[in-house]
């Protein structure tokens, strides 16, 4: 357990997306020391993030889908940021409300925004800064 120093959390109500995302992330992450967690339930995600942080594992970023049934991505990010202000959040969405995205960005809650469907290259480019900061 102590080897794992970093973690990345993905939250999306569509499990297929999670799978895709996970696969892609494994390509760019150092799997030896980075945990990749997937959640369809945002509440579960919040719980687990708490645990990770308590165990002093550095959560590099959280990828969040906008449209989710239980709560929107924006709400989730807000909740996370309340507890862990330094958590970096990236939003994924096929149909995000531009204005709420801008709002989140202006409040410094959102680091990046990626539109679905995404290009692998684009994804890596966006995420690279987060990952490189850990190395």
């Amino acid at each position: 357990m102590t080897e794992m120093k970093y973690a990345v959390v993905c939250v999306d109500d569509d499990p297929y997306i999670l799978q895709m995302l996970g696969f892609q992330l494994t390509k760019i992450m150092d799997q030896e020391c980075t945990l990749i967690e997937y959640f369809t339930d945002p509440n579960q995600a919040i719980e687990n993030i708490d645990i990770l942080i308590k165990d002093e594992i550095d959560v590099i970023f959280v990828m969040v889908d906008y449209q989710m049934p239980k709560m929107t991505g924006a709400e989730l990010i807000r909740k996370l940021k309340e507890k862990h202000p330094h958590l970096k959040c990236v939003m994924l969405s096929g149909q995000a409300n531009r204005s709420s995205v801008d709002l989140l960005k202006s409040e410094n809650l959102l680091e990046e925004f990626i539109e679905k469907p995404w290009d692998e290259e684009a994804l890596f480019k966006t995420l690279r800064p987060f990952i490189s900061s850990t190395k």
Partner: protein
Amino acid sequence: MIRFNSFTFQIWLPFAFALLIIISVAALYYPSKQEAYYIQNKKAQTLELSKTVAMNYELVFTLADSDPNIVFSSLITILDFAQKDHDIAFISIFDDDEYFSHRPNNIAVNEIIKWDSIKYIYQTSSFSYLDELGDKRSGFVKIAVSRSSIQDEISKNNRPIYFLLLGLTIFFLIAFYVLARWISKPIISVTNATLALSNQDFTGELPESNSKDEIGLLVNAIRGLRVKLLDQKSIDAQVVDKLETLVEERTLDLQQTQSEFVLAQKNAKFGIIRYYFNNDAWKSSDEFDLILGVDESVIKNMDGLSRLFVSHEKMTLQDVLPQMIENQDRFFSSDLKLKRLSDGETLVLAQVWELRYAEGNPIELIGSIQDITAKSTLQEELERLSLVAKKTTNLVLITDAKENITWVNDAAIEMTGYSREEIIGNTPRMFQFEKTDPEAKKKIRNALNEGRIISELEIQNRSKDGLEYWLTINIIPIKDENNDITGYIAVESDITELKRQVELRLENEMKYSHLLDKSSEMIQSLDAKGCITYANKAWLLNMNYESLDEVLGKHILSFFSDNTIKEFAEVMPELMKGNTVENLQCEFIAKDFNQIDITGRSQPIMENGQFVGSQGFFFNVTEVRKVKIQLDQMAKFKEIMLEITTEYINTPVSEIDSVINASLLEIAKFSSADRAYVFKYDYENETCSITHEWAAQGIRSQINELTSMPFSDVPYSMNKHVKGEFVEFPDVSKVKDKRIQDVLTDEGIQSLISIPMMDNDKAIGFIGFDIMKTKREFTIDEKNLLRIYSQMLVNVFARKGYIEELQRTKAELAGINLSLEKKVLENTKKNMDLTRSILEQEKLVTIGEISSGIAHDLNTPLGTIRVGADNVNFILSSLFNGSICDFTKEELSHILNHVEKNRIEMYVGGLQMRKEKEQMIEYLNGSFKGDVPAELDEISGLLVKCRFNPTNEDDIFMILSKPFAKEYLQIMNQLQMAMAQLETIRKSSDKAVRVVQDMRAFIKGESAVEQKLINLRENISTVLGVFNYEISLHVNLVFEVDESIEFMGYDIKLFQLWSNIVKNGLEAMSDQKDKYLGIFAERSDTQLKIVFENNGPKIPEKITDTIFNKFYTTKGMKSGSGLGLSIVKNVLKEHKANIILESNESLTKFIITFEL
């Protein structure tokens, strides 16, 4: 409350003062005494203590018999005692050169040694003992008592006493005050009572006291006093009243006396004067003024007095007064003859003077004078008379026996115009002139000669200036004692005016009777019996009599008609009572037996209240009556006209002609015509035609003949009519134009009149009246009326024309309307097309709105597919670039097999993975039957990734035994991943297809013209599919529609229906967290009921009606054109269904009912 000069205070003060002094003294004295006592006590006490301590100390050293225990215990007792006494500062023992002290209060050392008498009181006791060597040692015990502590204690002890004293003091002060007040109360009340009495106030309450002490006596005395004072007061009042009455009486008496006195003075011709020396002024009585002729101009001082008269005698006041004063005489009286300067009269006065002195100086002079001028009564009387005579306005002449005027008064002079000198000496005849009545002159002569009195004789005189005047003369002979005539007095009054008046009156009377005569009123005078005494010219004229003689004396009844006779019977009594009777309407019979109508009044002539005759004033109103009849006729004609006009106005066009005919009848009757007709002029054809006619019975109608008569036939009429003039032949036989006369006579027409009908200046026709029976001439008024009638007809014809015009126009309009309707129909069709296109638009809008949802729905699977494809690409490339070629086909197929059988789960989280990895490591390390592999960590990871767990021991063993186990596992993992990706791709594309299918079904073309069998559930599901994305977000969907429900309908239209309702519901709930959408269907034999409900906000009642109107939207510009729910309504209409909207706070329901 406390007045410092009050009695109460004065009583209280000494007490208070004394008390305060006592208390102060006590307060000061006591403590010091106490202190001394206390100190003494303390000293004694301390002395004892010191002795005890000393003894105790000695005991320590007494020979070995003493028990130290006893000594020490007694020491402790002493010390305890000392401890309790707070005043003891310290106890010290001085033993030769040693000392020690018991210091209960921690006193400083030097304090112990010194002797400070100010601070402490000391008590000492000495001791001595033998030391161990047998030497005598001595010392003393010193106890110091702190003075200050003593003082503190004393004051502490004293404090409550002080407070008590203070309290007592205050209490006693107050008590004393109350006592003082109580004591002084009676005195105060007595004082107040006395004050009241002295102020005449008897109303206040008096104190009472039954005690026999001084206060009591005083109180009672005051009470008694008040009673007496009251009595006295009432007595005084009575006395005052009496006095007042007396005084009044006296005053009255005095006044009376005074007036009597004045009167007496007057009578006695007694005048009084009072002169005051100090201001040189006098006051005089009226009589005095009269006697001496004093008026306002006289200055009432001594000088002025002397100017009043002149006297040659030496008995005047001025002469006598100085002497009197010198001699201090008081009285002076004498007779004095003087000449009064005011009028020069000589008087004889009796004067009495009294001089009053003060201190030898004269201050007042009282004088009384009496006029004792002796005059013969007669002379006096004469004088008076002459005064009268002088002043009278009547002429007074006095002549001697020879009729020569000796005296004449002013009035006579004025009247006659002659001067006194001219008159005196002449006879009165000088005033007479030619007009003077000789008869009167004769009468005078005779009377004079006979010595008779002439009274009230009228005579006319002339003044010097020629003014003629009338007089009434009264002449009285003056006889002396012997009865001889010595003269005459003539008194004459001016009756010129009177005479004039009489003449005037006569004149007036004459004029009056002249007037009566001239008046157009018929005036008659009857005597008491009713016989004519006078009748004026008018009366005679009207009655056709030549002269008054013919009727004079005849009884009025003979001129009355029968009716009037009856009236007369009623009128007469009234007259006899003396009342004027007005408004008589009578009929008189004239001389020629014509009846004339009379109206007028009759008034009685009363003499001394008796009826002596009557006078009647009448008017012949026969003519008037006639005129009235005519006027009535005119009025009636006007009425007829009015009726006719009204009829014309109200009559519909079609009936006008008959109305015109009827009116002709009326007018004809009025005109006494036998035939009436209306002709119209046709200027184009130059003909005239009869249009309306009325003919009396038996009279020939011309209506059929006289049509299209050329103008040339009636030149005369044309001529006249064109100018707007009437054609009238009052007497046909007199008509000059022979031709016309012939024509008319042939007809039998005696009179004819025709009136042109003028439309502005054009004669459009004429109205004619033929009179067969008589010769009728029409008066101006009648002609005017006829003109009016003709005008009316003109108007009527005009109106008819207008109405016909109107009808024509109406017909035109009807035609226009028809064409308009056609246009409207066309437009309506266009509208419907428009509506249809709007519906299309709505559909598009709906599509647009849901498209975003669709886009998302499509986007996700597409994205996934894309990524999946990328991933597979990646995997495959890495596979084939990697070590796949190192494996045999068998091995690869094994891998594939495994992979196919063991599809990896969707995702496994890192934590779980790690846990499993740990377990794997432990397993491998532990119970794994094989060797623990090198690269344990990596291998375990891979195994876990390939979803191997400790139960798959055989597989694991098999794989691990391979040389390239790691690579093997890697390939397996990759393949698994690839499979998973491909699975994902497939699933996503399925999802996309579904979305598109739903869309297509929704957008499908316009072929929805036929009804077909609809499966309700499928139909609604399609729509739900379209909204899937939106519904999936937080919407709790309850979709309970039985799949067996089928009915006929237009599926596309129903799509629109459901989608509109669902969309509206979703939008209504868009602001909520918990959204609920329920769809239920119920089918009965006759009805299909579908309910769409949502938990959106309540729709207000007033909107529920309008919500189905076109373009009504609550959603604003950007979402929806407002057509949605109206479309719903239309669709429902087409399906013969209706919708009910029920909305409350929790649930909004759309209930759609289809009739099957």
